[in-house]
C-alpha cells in the first residue's frame, strides 16, 4: 500500500502531503525532512526507487517538483512509478498545463483529485478519462 504521498519542491516546501497511515505532527515533519534530504541528492543515474527506513520511496521529478510515494517494500515499483505519472497527467489535463502555482492556489482542489485517484493507500481509479470526467463534474458544482 501507499503509506504517504508527498509533493515537494527543490527547496523543501511541501505542496501536498497525503497520509494513509497515522503519524503525529512531529513525526510527519521528520518524515518530510528525511524524504526531502534523501531525494534531492539523487540524479538521473540513480534509480527511481530508494530504500527508506522500513519502506521504500518511489519518486519522480517533474520540473521543479518531486512526486514521492512512500510504499511497502514488497510493492511493485514500476506500477507505482506509472501510478505517479498517471496522476500527473490527470493534473496536467485538468489544470491545462499544470505548474507549481496551480497546486499552491488550488490546494483544496488537488486534494479532491487525489481522493478520486487514490484512497486508503490504494489505487481507486486509473482511467484518465473517467477521472477527468468526474473531477470536472465535481468542480463545476456550487
Amino acid at each position, binding site marked *: 500500500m501507499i503509506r504517504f504521498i508527498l509533493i515537494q519542491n527543490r527547496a523543501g516546501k511541501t505542496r501536498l502531503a497525503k497520509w494513509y497511515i497515522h503519524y503525529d505532527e512531529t513525526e510527519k515533519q521528520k518524515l518530510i525532512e528525511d524524504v526531502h534530504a534523501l531525494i534531492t541528492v539523487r540524479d538521473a543515474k540513480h534509480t527511481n526507487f530508494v530504500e527508506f527506513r522500513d519502506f521504500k520511496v518511489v519518486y519522480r521529478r517533474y520540473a521543479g517538483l518531486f512526486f514521492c510515494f512512500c510504499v511497502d517494500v514488497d510493492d*511493485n515499483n514500476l506500477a507505482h512509478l*506509472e501510478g505517479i505519472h498517471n496522476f500527473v497527467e490527470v493534473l496536467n489535463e485538468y489544470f491545462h498545463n499544470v505548474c507549481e502555482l496551480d497546486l499552491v492556489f488550488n490546494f483544496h482542489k488537488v486534494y479532491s483529485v487525489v*481522493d478520486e485517484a487514490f484512497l*486508503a*493507500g490504494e489505487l481507486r*481509479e486509473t482511467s484518465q*478519462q473517467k477521472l477527468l470526467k468526474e473531477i470536472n463534474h465535481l468542480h463545476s*458544482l*456550487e
Partner: protein
Amino acid sequence: MPTVAKDGMRGLAVFISDIRNCKSKEAETKRINKELANIRSKFKGDKTLDGYHKKKYVCKLLFIFLLGHDVDFGHIEAVNLLSSNKYTEKQIGYLFISVLLNDGNDLVNLIIQNIKNDLSSRNPIHVNLALHCIANVGTREMAEAFFNEIPKLLISKEDIDQVKQSAALCMLRLYRAAPDLLPSGDWQNRVVHLLNDSHLGVVTAASSLIHALAEGNPDALSRIVTSTYQDLQDYTYYFVPAPWLSCKLLRLLQLFPPPSEQARLIECLEVILNKAQEPPKSKKIQHSNAKNSVLLEAINLIIHLDNDAVCPLLVRATNQLGQFLNHRETNLRYLALESLAQLAQCDFSREAVKKHLDTVIQALKTERDVSVRQRAVDLLYAMCDRSNAERIVQEMLAYLEAADYSIREEMVLKTAILSEKYATDYNWYVDVILQLIRVAGDYVSEEVWHRVIQVVTNREDIQGYAAKTCFDALQQPACHENMVRVGGYILGEFGNLIAGDQRSAPLVQFQLLQTRFHLCSSTTRSLILSAYIKMINLFPEIKTNIEDVLRSDVLQKNSDIELQQRALEYFKLSAISASNTEMLATVLEEMPPFPERESSILAKLKKKKPAAVKVIESPTNGHGDDKAKSLPVAKMSNDPPMPAAAPQQSSQDLLVDIFATPNTAAPAAPAAAEPAYGLTNMDDPFGINSSPAAPPTAAAAPSEPPPLIDSHCQKFFLKNSGVLFEDENLQIGIKMEFRERLGRVQLFYGNKSSSVDISNFKANVESIEGLKISTHQEAPNTITVGSQFQHIINIESMKDFDNFPVLNISGLYGGKYLALRIAVPLYMTKFAATATMDANQFFQRWRGLEKPDQQSQSVFKTASIDREAGMFH
C-alpha cells in the same frame, strides 16, 4: 494569475498571494496573525456567516495550518459546513476535518452524525465525500461507528460504481485500523463477485480489499472467480491494457496455492512473457514501464507457483531478466537484479541464473548507484555455490575494499558464510577470513572471528597453515586489533607447529605479540595473556621472558581487574610448574574440538536482513571432509554439549549396572526408553558434522543392495557411543554397553526433517559368525517428524569374529525409498574383560605362551603424535 474557478474564493487567492509576497519569516507570521485575528472575530461575530464566507475562512485556516502554523479553532465552523447541501462547502468542511481532526475532540460525535446523514443520502457525491472522510481519518472510532454500515453500500444493486469503489477502499482502511471489528456475514463472498464487475475501477478497488481480507484469512475466500474483461478502451494506458489491474490480480493470485487446473493460468503467464519479447508499440518510457510492471508481477507469481509445470516459464523469465541486466534504464537493471536473486533460490532456474555471473560481477564494478550495487551483491550471494564460490568471494572482497560503510558489516557476514559453506580447501577459508579482517577489521564482528577459530580448532590439517598465516599477518605494520585477537589465540594454541622454523621461533612469536600488547584493548590483552601461559607450557625455553612480563607491575597492578587477575594467576601457575610439571601440561592441554551448533553468523545475518537468509538455510549436502576431527555427538542426554572425552566416561560407568535398568544408570544417561528426545544437530547448515558418503536413494526399491558403510567404525574403536550415521533426513545414534561376553546395543533413529515422516521403517542386524544377535526392542515402524526412537539389540560373543555385523535399514521417506547397510562397530576388544592378577600370576601366564603360533609381530607407522597422545593417555 493561475485560473480560479467560478466559485473562486477571491479572498483566499489574495491571501495566498500576500503570503507569497512576504519577504521574511517575520512578515509572514505577522500577516498570518492578522488574518487569524480577522477570522476569529468573524466567527465570533453576531452576524451568522453565510456558507460562502464560512467556507472561505475555513479554507484560509486550512492553508495556514498546512503552512506549518498552529490552528486551534475553526472546527465548529468546519463541522457546520458539513450540513450544507452545497458540494463546495461540504468538501471544504470534510477536508478541514480530515486534516485537522484530533482524537478526543468533543466534536467527534457531531461529525459522526453528519457522516451518517451523508452516507444515507441519495446523492452519490455526498455519499462519496462521507466515505472519503472515513477512509482518510480511519481511526478506530470511525471503525466502530461505521464498519457495519458500509458493506451495504458495497453490495447493493442500486448503487453507483463510484460509490462502490469508495466503499471498498473505505472498508479496507477500517479493516486495517480495526481488524477485530470486521463485520461478519455474507458480504465477503459478495465482494468477490465484484471482481466480475464491468467497471474496472470497481474491480481495481475491490481487488485491493480482497487482497487484504485474503491475507488475513486465506481460507474464507478460496473461491475467486476469474473475471472477464470488457471495454478496455478507457483503461488502456500507453497501449498496455489495464496494467495496474493486471498487477493487482497477479498479486492476489500469489496469496493462494497453485490451482489444481493450472493450464489456463500458465497460458496467461506465457502470453505475458511473449508480449514482453515483442517489439515495443511505443517509444515512450511509460509504455515499457507499464509493460514491465506486469511482467515483473507475473514473474513473482511464477516464482510463487514453483512447481514442475512452470519450470520452462522460470527459465524463460530468467532469460528475459538476463537481457534487462544490460538495459539502458537503471530502473530495469535494478529490478532485474532483484528478481534474479529470487529466481536463484528456485531449483529450476538456479542454473540459468548462474549463467549471468559475469554480467553481475560487471555490474558490481561499474554501477554508479549504490543501491544497484547492493542488489548485485545480494544476487551474488543467492547464486553462490560450489562451482563459483571462489570467484564470488574474491569479487566480494574486492568490492568490500571500496564499499559504503553502511553495508560493510553485512558484506563481511555474507562473505564469511559463503567462504565457509563452499570451501573445498579450508586453507582458502582461513585466508579469506584473515583478509576480511585486514580489509574491514572494524566490521568483522565477534561471531566471524570466533567462527574461524572454531573451524581451525576442529580441523587439524589447517592448524599449521593458520599459525603461519597469522604469524605473517601479525608482522605487517598495520594490523587490526581483531587480527591480533585471532593471531594471539592461534599462536597460543598452535604456535608449536611453526616453532621449528627459525623465523617463527618461540621467542620471535612471543616478541611479536608483546610489541602489539600495549596497543590493544584490555579484552585483547587478556586474550594475549592466555596465549602467553600456553606458550610457557609449550616452550619452556622462553619461560623466563614471559614470566618477566607477567611479573611486571604494569600488569600485576593494572587497574583492569581481569588483566590483573590473569597476570597474577598465570604467573603463579608458571612458578608452581617448576616443581609440578604435570599440572601445567594438564591445565593447558590443547583445546578440544568445538561441538557443532547453529552458526551464530547466520543468526546475526538473519537479524539484519531476514529475507536474505532464506537462501542458505535449505540444507545442502555436507561436504563430508574426511580430515575433520570427529566432532562430538548429538545430544543424547539433555546436558550441554561436552567435548569428546565425556561420552566415553559415561558408558564406562554403565558397565557396572548394565542390565539392571539400562537407561538410568549414569547421570548422563538419557531418560527411560521413550521416543522423541530433543534432537540436536538438526540445525547443521554447513554439514560439517555429517559423516561421509550419503547412501544412494532410489525412487523405487533398489534392485541391488546398497553399499556397506563402514568408514565410521574406526572412530568407535575406543568409544561406545556416538553418531553412527547421518544424512539430511536420518540420524542414527548408537550406544553400546558390554559385560564380558554380553553386549547391548541401543540404536537411536532420529528424523531430522520437519515435514516428512519416515514410514515402513525396518531395521535389523543379522547374526554373523561368532556373534549371536537378538532383538530386545524392535525398531519402530514409523519415525515421525523431528522425533527419535530406540531400537535395542542384544549381542552374545560366542567366539572370535572377523567382521562387523550389518545393520540393514529400509524405509520410505516421503515417497523416496530409503535403503542403508551400516556396519555396527563391534570389535573383539569390546568384549574383553579385565582380570586382576599379581605379578607372579601374570608372568606365569606370559611364559606359558610359547608355541610359535601364539606369537606375532607387525610394524606400522603412527598417524600423528597428537593423535597418539589423545588415544593413549
